């Protein structure tokens, strides 16, 4: 920090001549079409939160149907209108629309855009020591494409024929034939339009993240000194860059099939006794293309949460992260493996059993890096001086959910078991724990932890604790019982179960009602967060500069971070980000920008050797400033 303040004067000039002129941005440039990564991050976050409430409400509506099939829903008519039929029950087609939109919204709009969009944007420049993203303009475009995509998807909720209804995976032929179901008409067209815009947005964002991480690190910030958050955003962006274009091509072929009559996915089909002209298409082809994105996508959702919680856990356990390099290695392993396991979603498509066992083998290998991560979390927590902030609780919650959801992944990864469990509630339980809840907990942990940096104020702790416990107990009550219903054979995406298995399913009526009540309570508990979040933005306690005593660079910026992030020089980096409770050190954390020469009492022998490099690192300052004036 000392280096940063000594040069404050002369640098002020520097910071300014890279902002084109001296004029202040007006309201629109500052809050709407902003190119500042921090504003864009907040825009993503607010959109993500709003979407989460929309997506959550949809799930409550279909949970009412599942838990209380006899219930009169007449009172929902003011909101849902004709989607409540004459007998006061939920329309059956609309039920399918609800699950589809719930999945789409949660996976893409909340846990991809809301999570990655928010924290990659916010933390990458702040933690690597950059003034902004490589291209502020592309970054702004990325948000506005997301906004457009959101608007299109949202408007599809109000169509008379309903939004897309073929599941979030929109398998053809259901999705390819407008006459197949009401939602496959205009609703599906809007879905595809919206997703195409979304893909463009993600690609622009991802390209920017990668480029920024590679090119704009501050002096001294070598790859092995980067916080794990940055590593996880980096791998996430790579996953997105390589897999989203594949979804785009899948969607394009689907669009051709729907609108131009080609037969990529459609083969001999009869609809109401009429043969369609399509010949020679393959619906399985779509599944291959979709899951080539779909599987990496689940890690696009999870990795940022893992990275952020590593950071939060190390900070609040006051201990260096256990196995820093092993964490990077396992994230790299997960990234690589993510591309070669997609067919585990397709074990029952009639695939060659030999091929099935190859994919089974590859899938089970993922358990290795996943377990490495889980153990590293636990060993970091082990004997730490745990400080239970709400962010820390949500991070520990993530570890728990990641383990209990990951274990069922190993069961599903066995093709012989999966043939029974595929498309049952067992799968729903698996991915809601490991992806849905775990990533959601990561998102929440991130919000609680970085809120002071985002808004200069603190969130209320007590409300945070209540929110955590309600959510933590809640998600387990909702998703754990689904394992049992799944094993009992309940298929997912079914409107009602009473006619199945000669009434055998009625034995589970109570359990289904229990799940629904738990879901309603858990969802209601999010209101606490909603209130806490928006109230604290305006009325929260003022934050100090480094409220969690953290080592990373974002906490060296002023409480109210301005344009360009550091008013003076960008600090240089001399050490890794996890010097917590270092033996011999005066305080229990040493920020990354403190040179080894300033801490002789705590240096290890090999660190003393690095003192020799400090002059060289500092002398890169001119080159670094130069690069902002290019």
């Amino acid at each position, binding site marked *: 920090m000392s280096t940063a303040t000594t040069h404050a004067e002369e640098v002020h000039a520097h910071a300014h001549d890279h902002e084109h002129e001296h004029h202040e941005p007006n309201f629109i440039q500052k809050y709407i079409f902003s190119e500042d990564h921090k504003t864009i991050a907040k825009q993503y976050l607010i959109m993500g939160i709003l979407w989460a409430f929309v997506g959550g409400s949809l799930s409550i509506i279909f949970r009412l149907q599942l838990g209380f099939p006899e219930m009169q829903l007449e009172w929902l008519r003011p909101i849902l209108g004709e989607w409540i039929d004459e007998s006061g029950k939920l329309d059956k087609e609309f039920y399918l629309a609800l699950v589809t939109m719930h999945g789409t919204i949660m996976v893409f709009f909340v846990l991809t855009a809301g999570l990655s969009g928010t924290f990659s944007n916010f933390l990458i420049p702040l933690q690597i020591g950059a003034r902004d993203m490589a291209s502020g303009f592309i970054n702004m475009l990325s948000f506005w494409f997301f906004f457009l995509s959101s608007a299109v998807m949202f408007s599809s909720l109000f169509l008379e024929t309903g939004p897309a209804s073929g599941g979030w995976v929109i398998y053809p032929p259901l999705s390819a034939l407008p006459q197949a179901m009401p939602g496959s008409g205009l609703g599906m067209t809007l879905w595809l339009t919206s997703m195409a815009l979304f893909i463009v947005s993600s690609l622009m964002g991802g390209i920017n993240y990668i*480029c920024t991480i590679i090119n704009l690190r501050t002096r001294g910030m070598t790859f092995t000194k980067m916080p794990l958050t940055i590593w996880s955003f980096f791998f996430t962006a790579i996953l997105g860059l390589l897999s989203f274009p594949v979804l785009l091509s899948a969607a394009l072929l689907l669009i051709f099939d729907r609108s131009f*009559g080609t037969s990529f996915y459609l083969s001999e089909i009869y609809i109401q006794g009429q043969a369609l002209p399509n010949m020679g298409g393959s619906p399985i082809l779509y599944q291959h293309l979709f899951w080539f994105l779909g599987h990496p996508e689940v890690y696009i959702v999870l990795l940022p949460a893992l990275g952020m919680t590593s950071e939060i856990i190390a900070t609040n356990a006051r201990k260096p992260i256990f196995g820093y390099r092993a964490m990077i290695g396992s994230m790299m392993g997960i990234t690589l493996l993510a591309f070669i396991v997609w067919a585990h979603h397709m074990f029952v498509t009639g695939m060659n059993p030999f091929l099935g066992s190859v994919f089974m083998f590859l899938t089970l290998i993922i358990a290795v890096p996943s377990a490495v991560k889980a153990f590293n979390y636990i060993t970091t927590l082990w004997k730490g001086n745990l400080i239970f902030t709400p962010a820390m609780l949500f991070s520990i919650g993530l570890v728990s959910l990641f383990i209990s959801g990951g274990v069922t992944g190993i069961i599903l990864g066995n093709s012989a078991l999966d043939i029974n469990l595929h498309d049952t509630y067992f799968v729903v339980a698996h991915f809601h724990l490991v992806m849905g809840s775990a990533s959601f907990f990561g998102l929440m942990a991130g919000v609680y932890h970085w809120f002071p940096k985002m808004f200069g104020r603190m969130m209320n702790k007590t409300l945070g604790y209540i929110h955590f416990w309600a959510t933590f107990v809640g998600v387990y009550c909702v998703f754990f019982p689904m394992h049992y219903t799944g094993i009992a054979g309940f298929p997912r995406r079914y409107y009602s179960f009473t006619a199945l298995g000669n009434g055998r399913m009625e034995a589970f009526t109570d359990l289904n009602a229990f799940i629904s009540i738990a879901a309603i309570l858990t969802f209601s508990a999010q209101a606490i967060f909603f209130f806490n979040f928006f109230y604290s933005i305006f009325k929260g306690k003022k934050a100090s500069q480094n409220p969690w005593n953290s080592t990373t660079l974002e906490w060296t910026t002023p409480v109210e971070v301005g344009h360009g992030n550091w008013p003076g020089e960008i600090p240089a980096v001399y050490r890794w980000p996890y010097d917590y409770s270092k033996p011999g050190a005066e305080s229990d954390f040493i920020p990354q920008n403190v040179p080894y020469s300033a801490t002789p009492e705590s240096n290890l022998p090999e660190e003393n050797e690095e003192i020799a490099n400090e002059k060289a690192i500092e*002398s890169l300052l001119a080159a670094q400033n130069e690069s902002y004036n290019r």
Partner: protein
Amino acid sequence: MKKPEELLAANETRSVNPKVFTMWLFIVSIVMLFAAFTSAYLVRKAEGNWVEFELPNLFYYSTVVLLGSSASMHFAYLAAKKDQFNALRLSISITFVLGLIFLIMQFYGWIQLVDENVFFVGNPSGSFVYVLSGLHGLHLISGLIVLLVALVAAFRLKINAKALTQIKICTTYWHFLDALWVYLFLFLVFNN
């Protein structure tokens, strides 16, 4: 102790030009798009029920034209490096015209396909040819726009030996589009 320059090179915290790098990442995403299409092609072909036909012979000639445009693009880059502004403008223009000719030839290639009774709507073997060449064409149009922007910059003397970033990006993209077509074309020739 290392010299600063060495450290910069060793560190590489900011040695690549971000704009050029962004271009490369953009290219990666296009590669994945077409990799998906060509793998889809192979997967679908393996399932049988695959109608075979001759590729339009115009595609052979258009490939040559596109290769020619890459050559002139390369001359444009060399000219920019040596501050030969007239040669620069001329080479960019030639590249642009060759690009246009390529697109027109592709279009006539489609007409040849139609004459062969291979339509966009029909057996996927034919649809794929339209999709691959069509989407490549779309990307080529974006390449033409990049060329136009570069041409304007060349007239304003914004491209010179000291400001090569723009022409570098333009050249890279154009060579990539060329290579992409060569890949798609050979792919179609060998897998048809």
